[in-house]
């Protein structure tokens, strides 16, 4: 009997080619996506570069040397050309706050010595550590080179390297590897997280919210396929109702449920994790409504694309998890290569998360959400129109 059950199950699987394909394709697809993200397969040679701006407040020979050294760092990408337009500290901080740069490097003088302040966006938890190490190294090397050249110039020692070796042997020397000294030289200041009770949680809440909006939307789209399979759709279309009205009705319903779903989750996040929902209600509502509309349209598009609920389930799992992985719902996008980050912009998740980040993390005014709202709304309309076109076959077959 057990063998018989096993045999029947295998035969059924073999007869259902889509299910068979998905059984093996889904794990491969997900393995590949995560391998690409973490293994650098697709983005090899394009490791994530941290977006920075630098301000040289000292304008000394050493600071200029540090700036030059930073400019040569492959791990940094300067979003403003260094020193080109006399960038000031406040402007640099604003660039960080607006998300244009992940970090602002401010070279300043501290007790007559070169020091650096790193104005950090703590949402990127890796960048601060990387930039701190890079800046430290650049300051130390530049100062060492400068002092060596000075000493060589004054002919106090016949060999600069010897001086450097001597200096290294002095445990109190500021040039080499003393922790206390380093802390004084490079100071990380979180310009985003100040005063926020639990800032990073809001971003994770948004990531999860978008993923579940997509799952909810495809579930709602599945109801349409179910209605088609049990002829309820035929019956509905034989009444006064048109396909346009049916799709719009479902779109609004799925979007409303999505807004409620995300709303309830953020209320929970406020109550339990101190996410400031009330303080960002306007931006939250705008982002949530538009994201829900876009996700619902996507769900309807998938439903009208598929022939059966089984197909929809398989396809939606692959697409949603892929989009969530690429779009930053599972892994922050700043961990991905530049190339993958660009691919991520083809997903709902990336745009939605960028929008939620602007609302909860950067606390930008709602007009700063225009690009995200525009892209999401436009994609929602496009998917809805595509769903309508695909649904024509249900009216004419």
């Amino acid at each position, binding site marked *: 009997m057990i063998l018989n059950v096993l045999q029947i199950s295998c035969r059924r699987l073999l007869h259902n080619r889509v299910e068979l394909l998905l059984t093996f394709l889904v794990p491969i697809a997900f393995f590949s996506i995560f391998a690409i993200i973490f293994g650098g397969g697709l983005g090899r040679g394009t490791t994530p570069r941290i977006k920075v701006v630098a301000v040289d407040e000292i304008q000394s020979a050493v600071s200029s040397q540090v700036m030059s050294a930073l400019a040569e760092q492959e791990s940094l990408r300067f979003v403003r050309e260094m020193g080109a337009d006399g960038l000031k500290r406040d402007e640099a901080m604003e660039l960080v706050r607006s998300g244009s740069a992940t970090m602002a490097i401010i070279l300043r003088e501290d007790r007559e010595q070169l020091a650096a302040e790193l104005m950090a966006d703590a949402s990127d938890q890796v960048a601060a550590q990387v930039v701190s190490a890079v800046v430290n190294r650049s300051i130390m090397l530049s100062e060492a080179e400068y002092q060596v050249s000075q000493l060589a110039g004054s002919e106090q020692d016949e060999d600069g390297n010897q001086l450097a070796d001597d200096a290294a042997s002095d445990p109190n020397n500021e040039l080499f590897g003393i922790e206390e000294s380093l802390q004084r030289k490079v100071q990380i200041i979180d310009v985003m997280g100040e005063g926020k009770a639990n800032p990073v949680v809001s971003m994770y809440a948004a990531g999860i919210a978008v993923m579940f909006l997509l799952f909810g939307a495809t579930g709602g789209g599945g109801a349409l396929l179910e209605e088609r399979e*049990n*002829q*309820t759709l*035929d*019956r*509905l*279309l*034989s*009444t*006064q*109702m048109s396909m346009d009205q049916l799709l719009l009705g479902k779109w609004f319903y799925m979007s409303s449920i999505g807004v409620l779903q995300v709303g309830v989750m953020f209320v929970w996040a406020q109550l339990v994790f101190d996410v400031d929902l009330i303080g960002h209600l306007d931006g939250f509502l705008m982002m949530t409504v538009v994201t829900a509309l876009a996700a619902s349209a996507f769900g309807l598009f998938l439903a009208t694309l598929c022939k059966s609920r089984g197909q929809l389930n398989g396809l939606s799992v692959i697409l949603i998890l892929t989009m969530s992985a690429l779009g930053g719902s599972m892994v922050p996008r700043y961990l991905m290569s530049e190339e993958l980050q660009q691919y991520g912009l083809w997903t709902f998740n990336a745009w939605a998360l960028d929008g939620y980040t602007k609302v909860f993390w950067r606390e930008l005014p709602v007009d700063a959400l225009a690009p995200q709202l525009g892209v999401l709304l436009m994609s929602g309309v496009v998917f809805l129109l595509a769903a309508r076109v695909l649904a024509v076959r249900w*009216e*004419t*077959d």
Partner: protein
Amino acid sequence: MRSVNYARPTPALAIHDLRKSYGDLHALKGVTFGLNRGERLAFLGPNGAGKTTLIRCLAGLTSADHGEIFLAGQPFKSSEARQQIGFVPQEIALYADLTTRQNLEAFGRFHGLRRRVLRDRLAWALRWTGLEDRADDLVGAFSGGMQRRVNLACGVMHEPRILLLDEPTVGVDPQSRQRIFMMLDELSATGTSILLTTHHLDEAEERSDRIVILDQGMVVADGSLDELVEQSVGTQRLVRLRIDRPLSAPIRAGVAEHAASFGATGEEEISTRIDDVSDHLPGLIDLVRRRGYGIADVQVEAPSLHHVFLHLTGYELRD
């Protein structure tokens, strides 16, 4: 069968030369027939004959490639047709997770009913289906027969002039089937024309005023049962006589060109067709007895729709 006024000049529904193809498959090859007001028409045909395609054309769910449909003499327009036609699909096309009342209300609204009219129709539908006491129960928990009744009611909430039923009694017990046909008779009595597809030939025979048989996209028969019998298998009755012992030789009667032979050597049954039972059967029995055989049993079988259907559509499997 009930009498129907065929003299009515404009039928409730008239279909003329309807054609529909799906690629190389010609589902309808010029279908023409009509449906009178208050008439119950059984629309029969083997699987793949084109019944569902025709029903979908009439329900406005697909459009024909060629031909015309008239509703009460007026050319078919999808928007108007939806008000005049009720469609009940073969599947239980209901929301199983809604109650009877909620389903009826939903489909009433989809058909454009509002406020008082909707309330009145809802009350009527609950009475009509006999489900007043189950109005607030979820349809998903109902038996097949009850679901069928709700399925039917949802298609007539808007009081259509024409009701299209695609196998409304599939999978229901005889009691529920009886109830459903009583409901349909009630509708028919108020002037609703009913077009019913079914594979239950006994239903078609007993519960319809007229029968249309479709085969391979064409109407192969259209008329009352008597007319179809006369046109196809003829009105002769089949008589079977079981005798008390095997025949030693065929029984012969008459002379010259009127000579006839009954039965075959070694068989214990004699079967033949006769025009008039009261006139010819006593003579046949007498003949058999005179040949020395006793009659153990007599069966007389009138030609039925079953015979007509198989005669017209053949015995070959269609799927």
